[in-house]
């Protein structure tokens, strides 16, 4: 791998947390005077406007005003605002790179400034759904192009030459005819006084002129701060006179404090106060869970104080939740007809006439996101203004909810977004930030930081759903499927917001269950009811995990029953290259994207399968105990296929010498970070497949730290991960997501490889000791 180019990095001043204020942030934007009122007029919405998709359909949509995103100082340094949260995907590098490229800025002189939560100003900031680049590539290109045009216009005016005679090049505007040149710093003041140009007048670069887009040669802007310990995460926030809190929360969803005794806790040295946080009625929503907070001079005292609390809980209506019993309930539900969510042909008749019927059930447990930085937030309230510092994926939502809980107008709440030490969906929910706000309020505005311990994080996540997928196929005499019946049973994320929600919502159904792109004439998908007994939330790639596991395992089982090669069988099931309108396969959601721009393209799915199997040497001889396994999955409008090679030793210990991953995500903006996301998704996929399980008993989570909720470590990680990016230099094509789609195919590829190596079929996750020989 070639060495990466480093730039001047993050605007470290904006991360000096002590004494930082909103004024400081605005000042940094005001450096070159590139802050003017106005900008682009809002897009008028007609009454009869057709359904919106993509960024247009997200809350507060997008903004492409250069005055909002770019500031140029007289010394030539360019500040570019990143309004999406950084949690390891590299977005604080990749989005500003897009602006810098169109701006013709020298990356060495670019600083990145993190936006606070303010979607009216910046556009949508919900950093989830693998959407940041997909939704903001074009707006950020226009930001850069507009700022470049303003600089060119200023130079042409100063030289009194036509605009057509000047051009921007690497931080300067040139007039080739006269040889004159002015630096961006010299032009900043004059450019800032110009009106923002119309979108129609912008000239975007031709892809062959890109300096940074598609190259992947730039180091993460936070890299040096990270390896030297200077990077500031939410948990690192330090404010003057700040207090530290931990909270004892109800162990069961819907529980509350009956009574508590704080006498012993208050005797712990450096403990200052014990405060009850009231529990809210269900649904859980984004509300804090309630409980008893211990506030101290430092975190260790707060933790010791919490240990000394005596609390009696009312465990509420979900105190009987038991994972073993619930699995039996889900199996029973999956063996009965359920709500039909897709139906084509006559599945019952085809099943009855089939030469052979095969059925299998696949179980996948709850998971916790377990970001290495647990949830944490610091809040102070000064003169009626609430200031938040938080590792949040959803700064605008956080702002709205904190304002509501404190009964403040939204403009009296500032949410400063720190780096996130991992998010994976957990930090989209602002419950932990509201806790900090309530505790600061209880301390009359004094700064309070709430730190979640690892035990808190695992016991009180918004859990990935538990699921039972039952698949049945009717095969003809040659083993080809005539009928496909899929029953999917899982408590829904919808139940976190509406307690009577017992069926999956369209986004869950559109995550690989109704939109399975197989060319089977008779196909039905059913969704029997399932009640939620804990907070269900989104976890990196969400419901795609159990669907890819079940479907891609079942196809391998069918291929095996037919005595055919798995790859050939899978390609035949997908059928010829075609573009399927997602609405025709009962997917009304389509990842929020336009069905015309983003159809299900089976040709692209076929190509990633061919690419992964070619690269992995599909069909090659492998040593004894080794096996190759294949899986492919379409999610977040990106196509991924994986071939895993496993090695299972005499004792049944699983090793993973190599994984090949082929990806078609459309245009690639930062291929280097795409590769790192795919490598990371692979290892997270290995982790959940081999070890990941959250279980409940008596309504409460059984796992409380990393000995019980194990994560893959370096010694059990794949020794080699090869990422194969399909050509992605046609920037007119729509972009796919990258943060999530690498994860779903990993577990089935591993399980299919295990079958190839051992003949043992894994139908429940995690694999744990299922392969062990006693």
């Amino acid at each position, binding site marked *: 791998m070639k060495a990466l180019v480093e730039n001047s990095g993050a605007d470290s001043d904006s991360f000096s947390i002590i004494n930082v204020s909103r004024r400081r942030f605005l000042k940094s934007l005001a450096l070159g005077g590139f802050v003017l009122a106005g900008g682009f007029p809002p897009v008028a919405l007609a009454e009869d406007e057709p359904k919106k998709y993509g960024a247009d359909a997200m809350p507060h949509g997008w903004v492409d005003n250069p005055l909002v995103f770019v500031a140029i100082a007289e010394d030539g340094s360019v500040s570019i605002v990143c309004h999406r949260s950084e949690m390891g995907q590299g977005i604080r590098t990749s989005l500003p790179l897009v602006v810098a490229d169109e701006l013709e800025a020298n990356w060495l002189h670019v600083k990145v400034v993190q936006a606070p939560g303010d979607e009216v100003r910046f556009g949508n900031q919900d950093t989830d759904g693998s959407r940041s680049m997909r939704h903001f590539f074009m707006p950020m290109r226009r930001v850069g192009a507009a700022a470049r045009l303003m600089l060119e216009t200023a130079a042409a005016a100063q030289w009194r030459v036509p605009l057509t005679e000047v051009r921007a090049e690497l931080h300067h505007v040139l007039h080739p005819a006269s040889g004159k040149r002015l630096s961006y710093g010299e032009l900043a003041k004059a450019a800032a006084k110009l009106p923002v140009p119309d979108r129609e007048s912008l000239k975007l670069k031709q892809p062959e002129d890109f300096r940074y887009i598609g190259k992947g040669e730039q180091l993460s802007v*936070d890299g040096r701060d*990270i*390896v030297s310990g200077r990077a500031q995460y939410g948990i690192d926030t330090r404010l003057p006179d700040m207090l530290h809190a931990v909270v004892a929360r109800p162990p069961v969803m819907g529980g509350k404090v009956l009574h508590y005794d704080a006498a012993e806790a208050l005797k712990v040295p450096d403990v200052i106060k014990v405060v009850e946080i009231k529990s809210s009625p269900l649904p859980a929503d984004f509300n804090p869970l309630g409980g008893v907070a211990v506030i101290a001079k430092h*975190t260790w005292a707060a933790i010791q104080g919490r240990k000394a609390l005596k609390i009696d809980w009312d465990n509420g209506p979900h105190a009987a939740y038991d994972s073993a019993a619930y699995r039996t309930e889900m199996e029973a539900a999956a063996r009965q007809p359920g709500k039909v969510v897709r139906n084509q042909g006559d599945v019952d008749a085809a099943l009855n006439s089939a030469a052979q019927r095969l059925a299998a059930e696949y179980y996948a447990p709850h998971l916790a996101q377990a970001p*290495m930085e647990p949830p944490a937030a610091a809040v102070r309230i000064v003169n009626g203004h609430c200031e938040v510092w938080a590792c949040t994926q959803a700064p605008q939502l956080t702002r709205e909810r904190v304002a509501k809980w404190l009964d403040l107008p939204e403009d009296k709440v500032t949410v400063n977004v720190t*780096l996130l030490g991992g998010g994976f969906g957990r930090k989209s929910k602002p419950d932990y930030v509201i806790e900090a706000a309530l505790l600061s309020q209880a301390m009359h505005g004094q700064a309070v930081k709430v730190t979640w311990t690892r035990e808190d994080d695992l016991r009180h996540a918004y859990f990935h759903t538990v699921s039972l997928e039952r698949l049945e196929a009717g095969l003809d005499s040659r083993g080809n499927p005539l009928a496909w019946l899929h029953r999917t049973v899982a408590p829904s994320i919808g139940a976190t917001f509406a307690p009577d929600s017992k069926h999956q919502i369209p986004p869950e159904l559109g995550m690989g269950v109704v939109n399975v792109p197989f060319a089977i004439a008779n196909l039905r998908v059913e969704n029997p009811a399932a009640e939620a007994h804990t907070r269900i939330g989104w976890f990196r790639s969400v419901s795609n995990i159990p669907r890819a596991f079940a479907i891609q395992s079942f196809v391998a089982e069918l291929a095996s029953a037919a005595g055919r090669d798995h790859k050939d069988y899978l390609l035949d099931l997908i059928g010829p290259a075609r573009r399927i309108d997602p609405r025709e396969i009962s997917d009304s959601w389509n990842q929020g994207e336009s069905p015309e721009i983003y159809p299900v393209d089976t040709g692209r799915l076929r190509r990633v399968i061919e690419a992964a199997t070619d690269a992995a040497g599909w069909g090659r001889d492998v040593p004894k105990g080794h096996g190759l396994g294949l899986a492919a999955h379409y999610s977040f409008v990106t196509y991924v296929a994986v071939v895993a090679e496993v090695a299972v030793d005499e004792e049944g210990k699983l090793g993973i010498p190599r994984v090949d991953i082929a990806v078609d995500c459309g245009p690639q903006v930062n291929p280097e970070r795409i590769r*790192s996301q795919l490598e990371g998704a692979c*290892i997270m996929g290995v982790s959940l497949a081999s070890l990941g399980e959250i279980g409940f008993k008596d309504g409460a989570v059984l796992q409380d730290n*990393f000995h019980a909720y194990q994560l893959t470590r*370096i010694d059990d990680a794949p020794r080699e991960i090869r990422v194969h990016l399909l050509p992605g230099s046609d920037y007119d094509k729509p972009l796919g997501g990258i943060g999530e789609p690498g994860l779903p195919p990993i577990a089935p590829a591993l399980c299919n490889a295990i079958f190839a190596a051992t003949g043992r079929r894994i139908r429940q996750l995690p694999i744990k000791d299922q392969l062990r020989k006693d």
Partner: protein
Amino acid sequence: MITLSINGVQRSIDLPPDTPLLWALRDGLGLTGTKYGCGIALCGACTVHVDGQATLACVTPISELAGKNIQTIEAMAEDATGQKVQAAWLSLGVPQCGYCQPGQVMAATALLKHNAQPADADIDKAMSRNICRCGTYTRIRAAIKQAAGELENAP
């Protein structure tokens, strides 16, 4: 009041003697590069060096550290081995979210100080105390080997 030698400087810490070094560094001294991840020696995010040995600060009370030489991530830019490790981490783009990486850098630096040319098995042994949830392990392994190569070539 306990006095500790941290990154070559004598620091007075006014915290109860059972306080783990992790919280003394973070809350007492403002050295937040050493991270909390589990609190019970399971994840390695809090790895520091005590007399040159990789040590988990979350389970090491400050009362045990008088007279010992404590080094944290904040001092690695001045450490010859630490510099090579940091440079390799950057040039291979190891970090994703980066939260565990100070601990990974400290563990890798301690490994290379004791074993200049670690084999894969040595890397497995030394680095398996450190969890990375983003999954940067293949790059961590490559970066340790690159740093080892540069240390070997150093004058």
